[in-house]
């Protein structure tokens, strides 16, 4: 019997694998520690802090969407409530001079997220799929609108503010400077990421996957899918609350925008663009989307359009997100056939790029005409100057789009062929799919 078990069960990880696994976490911790030494301006520290917060938030969202298959349009409710409670807690602690230091405040946010998820979740997780999505949307609207009515708690549209420096000091840190906040966020991010990763490797975490794949069958192996969804929902709420509390600490203010549809939409974008099929996906997505939303609005006034179009493109052509695209290449890389697809990529990239540039040229020129018709038509977009009034510009845009589209279609078909070939060869070389 013993022998059978040993041969049939997956072998326990070898020492090298274990080292690699723990090495990654240690490496991440080191990078987080050293990052501010390399880039230390207040702006980049703020950027990093925001990325950390958005990583926790996106991962918490993926507990729902990626792990359990629940599409929520209202995850910001728990983020926002966590943020509000954190701000109130800071004010309360300062007011009563409780010996609680700032680094513990995110726990309060987490507990708040957990509490409300536990309260609201029981009803909303009774159903999955479209019904759950709609319910989450309705509940989010309800909470966001109520926040403006319950003024003394939510502070109206102005929100509630606090001073994070007045709490008990830790190692002489008062958490005024951004660098100290950065380390606070980084530490919490690391802890939360590890915790959420660990969650995926527990019986509950695996049953979440089972519910995602086939909620019906789950019932016939003894589990109540509603309970699984509910517990997943509670965890998602808990971590969202931590993220919200960190955001509140970072900005020292919480207001109704925390709870709103925009926040819920952004986290959905981040998780999906990064790739919901992999644990690391939402992390990639959170970094990517945070950078985009911070940087893109500086280079073009219609950044939201690009954002929306990009999202549609991901949904249509790369449903696995950025991570999914990268992971697709793993078998090729292992099978040693990666080089075979690269040339076709290079060929396909050119017309695709041409098409994208044509599209952007057309959009920017149109924007010029509708938004600033009286201004000088010599405009710049993304730092590149061009003349929006010249027919040449329009002709160029049109030509780029049409020719680019035609060639891109052809060349991507070729990529498809090259890809299939490479994969087949890789399989023959003995790499499992």
């Amino acid at each position, binding site marked *: 019997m013993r022998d059978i078990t040993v041969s049939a069960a997956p072998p326990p990880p070898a020492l090298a694998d274990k080292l690699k696994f723990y090495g990654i976490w240690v490496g991440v911790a080191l990078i987080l520690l050293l990052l501010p030494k390399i880039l230390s301006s207040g702006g980049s520290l703020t950027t990093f802090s925001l990325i950390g917060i958005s990583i926790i938030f996106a991962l918490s969202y993926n507990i729902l969407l990626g792990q359990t298959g629940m599409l929520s349009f209202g995850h910001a409710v728990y983020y926002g409530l966590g943020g509000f409670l954190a701000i109130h807690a800071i004010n309360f602690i300062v007011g009563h001079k409780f010996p609680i230091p700032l680094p513990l405040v995110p726990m309060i946010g987490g507990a708040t997220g957990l509490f409300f998820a536990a309260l609201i979740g029981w009803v909303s997780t009774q159903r999955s799929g479209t019904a759950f999505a709609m319910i989450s949307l309705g509940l989010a609207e309800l909470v966001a609108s109520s926040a403006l009515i319950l003024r003394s708690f939510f502070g109206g549209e102005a929100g509630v503010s606090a001073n994070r420096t007045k709490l008990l000091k830790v190692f002489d840190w008062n958490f005024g400077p951004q660098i100290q906040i950065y380390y606070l966020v980084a530490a919490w991010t690391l802890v939360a990421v590890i915790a959420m990763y660990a969650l995926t490797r527990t*019986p509950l975490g695996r049953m979440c996957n089972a519910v995602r794949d086939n909620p019906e069958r789950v019932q016939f192996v003894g589990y109540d899918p509603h309970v699984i969804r509910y517990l997943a929902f509670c965890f998602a709420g808990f971590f969202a609350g931590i993220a919200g509390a960190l955001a509140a600490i970072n900005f020292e203010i919480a207001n109704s925008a925390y709870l709103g549809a925009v926040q819920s939409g952004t986290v959905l974008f981040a998780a999906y663009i990064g790739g919901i099929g992999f644990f690391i996906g939402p992390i990639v997505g959170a970094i990517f989307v945070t950078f985009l939303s911070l940087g893109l609005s500086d280079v073009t006034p219609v950044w939201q359009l690009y954002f929306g179009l990009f999202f549609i493109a991901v949904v249509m052509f790369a449903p696995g997100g950025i991570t999914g695209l990268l992971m697709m290449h793993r078998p090729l890389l292992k099978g040693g056939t990666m080089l075979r697809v690269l040339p076709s990529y290079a060929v396909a990239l050119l017309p695709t790029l041409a098409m994208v540039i044509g599209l952007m040229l057309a959009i920017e020129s149109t924007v010029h005409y509708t938004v600033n018709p009286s201004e000088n038509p010599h405009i710049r977009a993304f730092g590149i100057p061009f003349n929006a009034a010249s027919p040449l510009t329009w002709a160029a845009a049109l030509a780029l789009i049409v020719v680019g589209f035609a060639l891109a279609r052809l060349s991507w078909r070729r990529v498809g062929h090259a890809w299939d070939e490479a994969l087949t060869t890789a399989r023959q070389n003995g790499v*499992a*799919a």
Partner: protein
Amino acid sequence: MSGKEPNAIELRDVEKSFGITKVIQTINLKVAQGERHALIGPNGAGKSTTFNLISGYMKPTSGSIQLRGEEIAGLRPFQINRRGLSRSFQVTNVFGNMTVWENLRCAVLWATGQRYAFWKNIDKLPEVRERTARILEDIHLVGRRDVPAGLLTYAEQRALEIGITIAGGANVILLDEPTAGMSHAETERAVSLIRRLTEGRTLLIVEHDMSVVFGLADRISVLVYGQVIASGTPEEIRGNPKVKEAYLGEEAA
């Protein structure tokens, strides 16, 4: 128990209607403990519906369903499963994105008392690991351990389906056409697999392949138009004129 052991499954006057259509008209069915019982009948006779009623997938309109003497009519599927009844599906119904190993492991989790644990590392649960490995071995899928279930061949998926059904260690097993769509050789392998795996348990099976039915079953019940018209040993069923008329007659011809 000294006197009469309760039946593994007992249906009394079970009815099921969808709107005004009565799909099941008063079923009475007894399956004794340790028995291999086959449920046969023409298409649309209500075999799958009967399974759905017993396993809790549907609620009966009226009547009583007992599992080892305990009333289970109206309970939810997972409640019935926890009382020791497990079923398979006619159309393969596995966790497509998860590997074979993970599929089986999900099926042993509740039975090993893990419930909704979120504080244990699933890879470090020896009992779960051992039981999963044993089932994997039993259904001959060791070589396909790390393949996502969605990528298995049809016969392999059917084997996995059976594996998931029995993995929880249920005492009463319901198999819904386990050999449907299989080649002759595959069917034989499947039958011996079923025979081996259900050793000492109660089996209720729906099957169209008569060689499977007569080779496997201790007792057979015939369902026609939502009613059990006959119940008995294979020999009794073979000789029953009513059955011949309604069902076997055409098949034998």
